[in-house]
């Protein structure tokens, strides 16, 4: 169609306009496609690598390594396991290197250079660590005061996010990383190092679930004597000591009885030989006294041991009740009533429970019988002893009469009889009791972590996924805006040529032909721009992925072209443009030909509002604004989008910098020691705290996230909130409140994934504590809740570094480290912030320029006319650019608060994988900067437009007809 020849010329005449729009499309698609594309590349690379290198399904750690048989047993169940024991040892520049031995089946090493270590004295390093320390294959590195030859550099799929602890907010690639040595070397290291983590990776086969595996691991027997860790051994020893004390007491008892027997026979002999002389009697009584005294002294230990056992048993019962969800605490005195009460309430409704309870009660009863018997026995010993004392006195008073001797002998005889009859029975009872009731259930399992919950494995992908979704959504918004802007321009063209179109209609052109014609240009522009933009996006993937590649540890990537992204980058913009332009242009071309010929424009009703109260300038401006209401509304949406982006950029900046400064200001202690094996007595200059790690449901992702519950006491100098209230009252940090959406008064449920137990708390208050995800409660309540002893603790807070054996420490958190981590997050976000702000300013300026220019173009005739009337440039600027100011001011006033609202809602989702709750915050300063940017952009557009205004000649009015 010959008419289409005008398209090329139209394009040439308006190259600024179409060029700018194409630029916007190319630019935004370039950003979006490269962001989404790099996510896909990361995902693809990681998935491929995970498959190739047999990523684990999960991992667990134990106190005592599994035996060969146990591993076989697990394998039969459907869980292949591979030991991934490690030691954390010092590397160069104060770094910590976690050293593993080479892997065979699971989480195998992906080498990027060199080869695996296959002799002692060789090591393979994680690639970022090697790079940060400037180490290459063939060089050597000093680890743990020993030189190793670096034979290879690579990555491991279970450490794509190289964090030391799974709950760390960020990795510090220079300070911590992983390395691999051969088996012989590793065994040497094990021999040197006490603090080995017995970690295993597993892969599930068949129907076995992670939960079933975990339950199996909890039940696994293990050899207590093989506990290699001395601190763990201490704990086991304390428990075992109770047992030993009891059997020791019984043995002593037997010894005492033997001596007593000896004494009694001597006594008999003495009485028989009473006549033989007082001397032999005296020695007999002495001997007897000694025996009985020893026996009596054993009584205390015996009773103490029995009591320990009893308390242990009561604790077990309480634990059982808690598991069953029964909210009571039984004691040695009330158990009978309490259990009877339960049996009564159950009243046959649950026969299993009734029988369990009955068994429990019988057990406790039998124990009490034993305790009572023990008490009888000690009473017997005591009366025998007092008898012997009497005897001794009697012997001394021998001369005072034989009656006393007879009495004494009788009393002794009674005691002895009682004792002898009880003795055999007692010994049996104690032995039975120890065997039956004192088999403490040590659980070997320390941690159990599925791969999906392991941020070392997941965070790289989830990190990328969030960026991708945000980018894709922003992209659609911008594309829609652009498509709409294009249609606005097309409308302007149609309006300008309306008489021509009317003429064409009157010659017999039909709408279809003209519609097709007017669609071509916008579609060509959009198609070309989206092809270019998508191509650019794919080319920018390399640039975009840099940050991810530099932070996460995975092998080199290959660019992929996912089909959906081609659809998104090419088909979607084309479809949006097709739809928007079709609707708008079709509507415009539906006017009757006569109306088009007469240039009859549908005047918006608004354009006729009564403005007689206003002065001329304002009236004129408002008329102009209303006449161009469509352009102004489009401008509003464009500026709104730009401002939304700007607010987003500043919010990221604001929240991350607030996080940095809050971490520094909220945390009052300088050192936090999480202890794996707390020592009996804590250093006096440290504050004892009890820490448990639980998980909470995270509505943002539908998954779970770890929270740290800390039990503190009223004297804790680092916190100044009161701890009174109900037993299950907790005080949560604002970080937790933000992350999980908790409020004061909420009932919250946290769970311990290892024991599958749920704990309910009530939020009493929210306090400022930005770092991590912390919940605080009274340490006494917490010990009770988790069944710990009165003075239990596992965490120390301190102002200065503490001198603690390294083997006891699980983690040391220093405020400096926290702040450094937060700062690092800041640097990582910086690029994104700059990109977003840059894009927003570009969008702002381009949208505003194009639309203002279009409105001026439409008014060329009247501007020229006004010039002819004698208005000067200043006045003309006032009349025509003043209206733009109204729109910009209005857009700014509406868009800033609205954008903040939107971003506040959306932001938590964007940071949902960060284990800290961050609010979208903007400082007043950012607000001011933003307004300044907007004003600056407005001024520069104004400048460009006023140059354009100057160019409108007086002759325009003569040339054109309106």
């Amino acid at each position, binding site marked *: 169609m*010959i*008419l289409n*020849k005008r398209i090329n010329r139209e394009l040439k005449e308006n190259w600024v306009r179409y060029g700018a729009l194409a630029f916007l499309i190319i630019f935004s698609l370039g950003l979006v496609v490269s962001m989404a594309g790099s996510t896909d590349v990361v995902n693809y690379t990681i998935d491929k690598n995970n498959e190739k290198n047999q990523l684990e399904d999960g991992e667990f750690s134990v106190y005592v390594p599994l035996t060969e048989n146990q591993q076989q047993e697990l394998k039969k169940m459907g869980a292949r396991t591979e030991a991934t024991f490690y030691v954390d040892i010092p590397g160069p520049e104060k770094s910590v290197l976690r050293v593993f031995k080479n892997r065979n089946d699971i989480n195998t090493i992906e080498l990027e250079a060199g080869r695996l270590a296959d002799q002692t004295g060789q090591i393979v390093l994680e690639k970022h660590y090697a790079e940060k320390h400037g180490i290459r294959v063939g060089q050597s590195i000093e680890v743990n005061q020993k030189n190793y030859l670096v034979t290879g550099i690579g990555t491991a799929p279970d450490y794509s996010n190289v964090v030391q602890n799974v709950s760390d907010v960020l990795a510090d690639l220079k300070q911590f990383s992983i390395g691999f040595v051969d088996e012989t070397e590793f065994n040497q290291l094990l021999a040197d190092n006490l603090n080995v983590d017995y970690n295993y990776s597993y892969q599930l086969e068949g129907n076995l679930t992670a939960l079933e595996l975990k339950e199996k691991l909890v039940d696994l027997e293990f050899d207590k004597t093989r506990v290699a860790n001395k601190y763990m051994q201490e704990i086991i020893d304390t428990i075992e000591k109770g047992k030993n004390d009891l059997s020791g007491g019984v043995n002593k008892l037997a010894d005492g009885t033997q001596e007593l027997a000896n004494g009694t026979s001597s006594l008999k002999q003495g009485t028989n030989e009473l006549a033989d002389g007082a001397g032999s009697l005296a020695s007999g009584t002495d001997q007897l006294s000694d025996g009985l005294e020893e026996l009596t002294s054993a009584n205390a230990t015996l009773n103490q041991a029995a009591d320990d056992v009893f308390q242990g048993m009561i604790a077990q019962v309480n634990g059982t009740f808690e598991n069953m969800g029964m909210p009571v605490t039984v004691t040695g005195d009330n158990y009978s009533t309490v259990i009877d009460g339960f049996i009564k309430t159950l009243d046959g409704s649950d026969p299993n429970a009734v029988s369990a309870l009955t068994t429990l009660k019988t057990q406790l009863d039998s124990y009490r019988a034993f305790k009572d018997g023990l008490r009888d026995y000690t009473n017997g010993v005591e009366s025998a002893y007092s008898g012997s004392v009497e005897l001794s006195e009697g012997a001394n008073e021998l001369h005072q009469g034989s009656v006393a001797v007879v009495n004494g002998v009788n009393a002794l005889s009674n005691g002895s009889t009682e004792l002898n009859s009880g003795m055999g029975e007692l010994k049996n009872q104690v032995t039975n009791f120890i065997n039956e009731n004192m088999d403490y259930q040590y659980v070997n399992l320390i941690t159990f972590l599925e791969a999906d919950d392991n941020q070392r494995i997941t965070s790289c992908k989830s990190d990328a996924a969030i960026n991708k979704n945000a980018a894709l959504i922003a992209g659609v918004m911008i594309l829609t805006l652009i498509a709409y802007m294009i249609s606005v321009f097309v409308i302007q063209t149609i309006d300008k040529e309306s008489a021509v179109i*009317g003429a064409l209609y*009157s*010659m017999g052109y039909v709408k279809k032909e003209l519609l097709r014609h007017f669609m071509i240009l916008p579609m060509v522009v959009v198609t070309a721009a989206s092809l270019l933009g998508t191509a650019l996006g794919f080319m920018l993937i390399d640039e975009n992925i840099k940050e991810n590649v530099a932070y996460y540890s995975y092998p080199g990537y290959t660019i992929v072209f996912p089909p959906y992204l081609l659809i998104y980058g090419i088909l979607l913009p084309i479809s949006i443009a097709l739809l928007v332009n079709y609707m708008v242009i079709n509507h415009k071309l539906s006017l009757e030909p006569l109306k088009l010929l007469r240039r009859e424009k549908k005047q918006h009703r608004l354009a006729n509002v009564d403005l007689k109260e206003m002065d001329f300038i304002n009236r004129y401006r408002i008329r102009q604004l209303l006449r161009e209401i469509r352009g102004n509304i489009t401008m509003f949406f464009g500026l709104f989008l730009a401002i939304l982006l700007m607010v987003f950029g500043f919010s990221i900046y604001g929240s991350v910098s607030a996080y940095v400064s809050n971490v520094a200001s909220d945390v009052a202690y300088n050192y936090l020691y999480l202890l794996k094996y707390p020592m009996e007595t804590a250093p006096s200059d440290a504050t004892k705290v009890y820490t448990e790690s639980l998980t909470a449901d995270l509505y943002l992702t539908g998954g779970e996230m770890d929270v740290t519950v800390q039990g503190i006491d009223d004297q804790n100098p680092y916190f100044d909130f009161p701890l009174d209230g109900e037993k299950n009252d907790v005080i949560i940090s604002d970080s937790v409140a933000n992350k999980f959406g908790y409020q004061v008064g909420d009932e919250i449920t946290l769970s311990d994934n290892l024991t599958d137990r749920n704990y309910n708390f009530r939020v009493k208050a929210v306090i400022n504590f930005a770092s991590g995800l912390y919940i605080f409660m009274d340490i006494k309540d917490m010990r009770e809740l988790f069944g710990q002893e009165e003075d239990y603790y596992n965490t120390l807070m301190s102002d200065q570094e503490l001198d603690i054996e390294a083997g006891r420490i699980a983690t040391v958190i220093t405020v400096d480290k926290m702040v450094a981590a937060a700062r690092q997050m800041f640097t990582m976000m910086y690029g994104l912030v700059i990109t977003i702000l840059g894009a927003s300013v570009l969008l702002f300026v381009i949208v505003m320029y194009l639309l203002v220019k279009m409105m001026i173009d439409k008014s060329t005739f009247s501007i020229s006319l006004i010039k002819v009337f004698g208005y000067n440039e200043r006045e003309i600027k006032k009349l025509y650019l003043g209206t733009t100011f109204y729109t910009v001011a209005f857009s700014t006033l509406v868009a800033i608060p609205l954008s903040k609202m939107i971003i506040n809602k959306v932001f938590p989702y964007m940071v949902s994988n960060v284990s800290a709750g961050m609010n979208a915050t903007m400082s007043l300063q950012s607000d001011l900067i933003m307004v300044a940017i907007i004003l600056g952009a407005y001024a520069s557009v104004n400048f460009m437009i006023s140059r354009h205004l100057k160019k409108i000649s007086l002759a325009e009015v003569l040339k054109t*007809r309106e």
Partner: protein
Amino acid sequence: MFIEVNDIKKSYGEGGSYVQVLKGITSGIKKGQICAILGPSGSGKSTLLNTIGGLDTIDSGSIKINNIEISKLNPKELSLYRRNLLGFIFQFYNLVPNLTVKENIQVCEYLTKTPLDLNELLEILGLTEHQKKFPSQLSGGQQQRCAIARALIKNPELLLCDEPTGALDYQASREILMLIEKINKKYGTTMLIVTHNTAIKEMVHRVIKIKDGQISEDYANTVLKPASQLEW
């Protein structure tokens, strides 16, 4: 009769703004004739022309062109009717600004399967040397010649002209009128010319004068004065 209009009535607006523009117009024009429609401003000349061109509707009456009742056609059929039968010439040319003279004419060449020879038409209209120019580079008379060429290229049976010389000076106007005359002779095109220029009535076959929505005078000329001899 090629054109038969019978008692057509047309009004605009409602209530207070109601105006009866055509108050019962009846006439007929033979094929191949030039007819001038004269009358004071606002009398309804353009309205009549537009209704005949199918651009405007009528309230009552009938318009038959070549025996087709066009007041009964739907918009689609109307545009087909215009496409096949009509050529339009406007006071303000309405050329596509970013197409050259030749291209502007080709725009309408596209509408028919049997166009006239473009080069011949350019020659007749004296546009051969201007054919590569854009409308903005032409004088008013040249633009109107281009518009005429555009209207004629598809060899319409009926050419409707609304004040074709309204924006032109004496000399240019006369050239246009001479062209119209020439084309009528050469192609036998029936023509309706709405004009204020009373001199035109001497060169046409038929004169219809309208006043206040009604025909005040309707006559045929027996002797036609060549356009070249018109004076005003």
